[in-house]
C-alpha cells in the first residue's frame, strides 16, 4: 500500500475498468437476474413466455392469415430474426435505464459507471441463450446442415448486436441522466427495430419497392445485416429451403462485404457511446 502514489479518485479507464472489476460485474448480473423475477411464480420462465406469445401472434397474423407460410420454413426464418431483435431490445432498453435505475449507487459510491450498462447487456445475453437453444433444436428438426462460413457469420452477427446495443446503451444511458426523454426515444426506436430489419418480410421486397439507393442505406443498419446473417446461418441451410426451386435468396456479398461493414459500424457506435458516456459521467452524481 505504501508504494501507491497519489492519483485522482475519479480517474476512469472506461470499459477497461469493467474488466478489472469482473467480480462486481458478476454480482450485479446475479442481482439483476434475481431481482427481476422476485416473488413471481414462473420466474425466469417469463423470458420464454413473452417471446413465445409474440412468436405465436406473428405466426398466425403473418404466417397463416397473410400467407407468408408458403415460403419454406418460414417459422425458422421468423424465429431466428425475432430472437436477435429481442436480444437487441432487451440489451439496449435495459442499458438505457441502468444508470438512472442504479442512481442511489452512482450518487454515493465511486464505481466504474460503465458497469451498469455492461451488466444489462450481460443479463440480455443470459436471456438470449435459452431462446437460441430453442432455435438450434428447431433447426435440427428441419434438417439443418450449416457450412463453416455461415456459422462464423452467425458469431459475427452476435458480436455485432452486442457491440451495437452496448454502444447505443451507453449513449442513451448517459443522455437519460440529463433528460428522461431518452427512455421514450429509445422505446420508439425499439418499436421500429422489428420492422427496420427483414425479420417478418424478405429483404428484397425493400429493394424492389423502394429502389437501390434506399436499400443501400437500409442495408447499412447493423441490425439488418445481423438478421440476414442469422438467416444465412440458420434458415438457408435447412432441408426444405435448400430443396426449394428458388433456393434461399440472400443479399449478395453478405459474408465478404456486409459482415465486416456491420462490425465496423457497430464498433464505431460503441466508441461513440463510450466517449459520450465518459464526457457526461462526471455530471451523473449531481444530476441524478
Amino acid at each position, binding site marked *: 500500500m505504501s508504494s501507491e502514489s497519489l492519483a*485522482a479518485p475519479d480517474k476512469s479507464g472506461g470499459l477497461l475498468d469493467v474488466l478489472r472489476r469482473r467480480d462486481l460485474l458478476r454480482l450485479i448480473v446475479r442481482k439483476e437476474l434475481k431481482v427481476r423475477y422476485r416473488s413471481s411464480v414462473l420466474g425466469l420462465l417469463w423470458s420464454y413466455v413473452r417471446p413465445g406469445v409474440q412468436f405465436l401472434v406473428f405466426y398466425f397474423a403473418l404466417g397463416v392469415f397473410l400467407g407468408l407460410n408458403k415460403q419454406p420454413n418460414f417459422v425458422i426464418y421468423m424465429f431466428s430474426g425475432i430472437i436477435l431483435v429481442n436480444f437487441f431490445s432487451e440489451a439496449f432498453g435495459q442499458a438505457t435505464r441502468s444508470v438512472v435505475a442504479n442512481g442511489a449507487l452512482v450518487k454515493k459510491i*465511486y464505481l466504474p459507471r460503465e458497469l451498469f450498462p455492461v451488466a444489462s447487456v450481460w443479463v440480455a445475453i443470459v436471456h438470449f441463450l435459452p431462446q437460441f437453444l430453442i432455435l438450434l433444436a428447431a433447426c435440427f428438426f428441419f434438417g439443418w446442415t450449416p457450412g463453416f462460413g455461415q456459422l462464423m457469420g452467425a458469431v459475427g452477427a452476435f458480436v455485432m448486436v452486442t457491440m451495437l446495443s452496448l454502444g447505443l446503451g451507453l449513449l442513451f444511458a448517459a443522455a437519460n441522466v440529463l433528460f428522461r426523454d431518452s427512455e421514450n426515444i429509445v422505446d420508439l426506436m425499439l418499436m421500429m427495430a422489428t420492422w427496420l430489419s427483414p425479420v417478418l418480410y424478405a429483404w428484397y421486397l425493400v429493394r424492389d419497392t423502394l429502389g437501390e439507393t434506399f436499400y443501400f442505406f437500409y442495408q447499412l443498419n447493423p441490425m439488418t445485416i445481423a438478421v440476414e446473417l442469422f438467416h444465412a446461418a440458420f434458415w438457408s441451410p435447412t432441408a426444405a429451403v435448400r430443396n426449394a426451386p428458388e433456393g434461399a435468396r440472400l443479399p449478395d456479398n453478405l459474408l465478404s462485404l456486409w459482415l465486416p461493414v456491420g462490425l465496423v459500424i457497430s464498433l464505431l457506435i460503441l466508441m461513440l457511446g463510450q466517449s459520450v458516456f465518459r464526457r457526461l459521467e462526471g455530471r451523473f452524481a449531481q444530476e441524478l
Partner: protein
Amino acid sequence: MGSEAIVVENVSKRFNLRHTRSLKETVVWLFKGRRGELSSTFMALDGVNVSVDRGESVALLGFNGSGKSTLLKLISGVMSTDTGSVRTRGKVAGLIEVGAGFHPDLTGRENVYLNGVILGMTEQETAERFDEIVEFSEIGKFIDTEVKFYSSGMFLRLAFSVAVHTRPDVFLIDEILSVGDEPFQKKCLARIQELRDSGCTLVVVSHDLDMVSRVCSRGVVLRQGKKVADGPIEEAVRLLRES
C-alpha cells in the same frame, strides 16, 4: 514518496441547478427567450485547500450547506471538480451513506457479498470476513432473510458492519454514527477508533461535535464553501460552538 493520503488543491465546485428535466421544456424555454432561467448556479466549494497525512483523522465541520458533504464526495470520486484537483493514495472507501448499495429484495447474505465487492473487496476477501461481519452486526439468524423484512436498525447495523470491515487506506464517513441503539453506537465508535489506531486515514463529516472530538485530532471548518479554520479539533469545535 510523500506522506499525504489526500491532497485537495484549490478545489471549486459549482452546481448548476437546472429548472427543467425534459427536452420539451428546454426547447420551449429556449424559444421563449427564457434561456437564462434554464439553470442557476451556486458555489458549493470555493478554492479549498486541504492536505491530509496518512494515519491522520480529520473532521470536516460546518453548518448545513457549508460544502462538507460535497468535499467528501469529491474525495471519494463520486463527483468531479470544476477547477483544482483532488488526489488520493491507496484504497478509498466511503460511507457516504450507509447501505447505498443494499437491495431490499436480496437476503442479508447476498447483500453482504454485493456490498463488500462494491466497496472494493474481492469476493474471496468478503467470504473470509463474512463471519466477522455478521457477528459484528448482531444480525444472527436473520442473515438469510430478505433485507426488506429487516427493521431499520438491523439494516443499518448490517450495512455499517460491511463498511467497517473493508479495511480501506482512507475511510470517509458522512454522519453515520446515528446508527442503531446506544450500545451499538458505542461499538461503532470503538471500531472506528480501532481503525484509526491501526493507521487508517479518517475523514469524518458530522454535526455531533462530542463524537467528533473523541475520534478526530484535527478539524477543518468550512463556511459557505470556503475553508475558515484548520487546526486541532478542540479549536475547531470551539469556533463552531461560538458562532
